[in-house]
């Protein structure tokens, strides 16, 4: 399990809907109400059509590992209790690519071998602060391996 680490201001107007959806067990992203572009990371304007306005859309919460790395040393004091932990770039079926923490039995995917590029992963929601959940990812070990 990972410590709370570096949580931003979860009440900031731009991202508050994202954080509150996590508390309901939903991963979400903005879809532009003008051109329909699915936006990640959250942004005030659409990087395609430059218009404001977006609706938060629930994502499936599945993905495929594009790459991963293992933090064995904390590169920020707030993460001192979290190491070792595994991070990944995850391709979502909705067409966006996100960074995430992958939970494995030891935290070190190089040691436990539980994460490989191309693996399918699923979102889980872990309480990381009082009244705040964060999305984490777990290997969909029972399912078929993805294609890299």
């Amino acid at each position, binding site marked *: 399990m990972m410590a709370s680490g570096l949580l931003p201001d979860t009440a900031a107007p731009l991202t508050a809907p994202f954080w509150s959806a996590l508390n309901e067990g939903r991963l979400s992203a903005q879809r532009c109400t003008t051109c329909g572009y699915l936006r990640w990371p959250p942004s005030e304007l659409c990087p395609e059509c430059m218009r404001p306005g977006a609706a938060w859309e629930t994502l499936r919460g599945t993905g495929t590992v594009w790459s991963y790395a293992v*933090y064995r040393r904390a590169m920020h004091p707030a993460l001192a209790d979290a190491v070792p932990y595994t*991070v990944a770039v995850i391709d979502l079926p909705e067409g966006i690519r996100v960074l995430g923490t992958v939970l494995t039995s030891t935290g070190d995917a190089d040691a436990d071998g539980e994460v490989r590029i191309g693996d399918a992963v699923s979102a889980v929601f872990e309480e990381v602060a009082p009244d705040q959940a964060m999305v984490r990812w777990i290997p969909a070990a029972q399912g078929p391996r993805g294609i890299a």
Partner: protein
Amino acid sequence: MVAVMRERAAIVGIGTTAQGELPGRTANEIAVEAIALALADAGLTKDDVDGLITCRNLHARSGIDEQVGALMGLNPRFGATLDYGTGNFSLHLGIMALAAGLAETIVLVYGTNQRSQRASFGIPIGGGAEMAAAAGVVHVAGPAALAFRRHQHLYGTTEEQLGWVSVAQREWAQRNPLAIFRKPLTIDDYLASDPIVAPLRRSDLTMISDGGAAIVLTTAARAKDRPKRPVYIDGFAERTAFRADQNPDNLMRPWLGDLATELWSTSGYTPADIDALYIQDATSVWVLQMLEWYGFAPVGEGGRFLAEGHTRPGGSLPVNTNGGQLSEAYMWGWLHLCEAVRQLRGEAGERQVAGVEVALDCSSHDFLKGAASILTTRS
């Protein structure tokens, strides 16, 4: 582009301060020391300077042109500060100012006390910084490790192959009195060390350091009157990737390949013309990436190229002959430019490469910008 300039720009002076830990000194004070050294090298005084281009520090409001100008008592015609002032970007702004007639003798400078100030680099890098931090992806080591693991997956690149970046640069650094890290580092030492952000090790990352570097830039015509052999800028190109993670495979930085294509086609040079190569190395992975994107090795074969020893002393393509940021000092690529000038002038002492006439300096600013310059003594 080069073709529209009336004449080439030339570097006529360089100055480098001690590197490492310079306690009790401000960033601007270090910058002015570097400027004094560069002016002495150029045989000029501050009264000859009519342009000042400075480099803002990452974590402090220091390195601003107004501050540096005030500290050195200078009212140049032209002053500017770059927030992303890795050496090449500042050099290009200087070339533009010369071409526009805004100045004729320009000092470019970067000074920092970020080590003494204990500046934290444990910050997220690139787009979506807040979300990256929440996932624990902080410090450039994270994205670099993710990029290298992907390279391994696609091309079979090994940790040992990557290790040759750090080992070769340490071999060069042992011949450089300015370098902070001069202790021998073998490939066995490298492989025996523990990963910090696996698959990357300590030797794949830079250590934050204090120091200063400055460059005096002028027109080719004026350069002829200076005591040192002029080093001309014969080609340059830049690229941005501001859309960051929305760009395809941005961690691999494929847009550097577009930059390289423009550089080669507008300058008329090819990779085979390059006698010494400089790659700004926030991490060793950037060296691997840029060897490939600039065409020194086919994409996917950078690891093999490194393991063959081409970049080491005595190799066919000397890379980062100062030791680079991994072994010399962390100066945002400024020392790469200074080293290129030293090699081109034949002033590199024990590490001098024979017959260097053309050098290429490649820099990048996170996952957001790239720049490159071709430097030559050919008149």
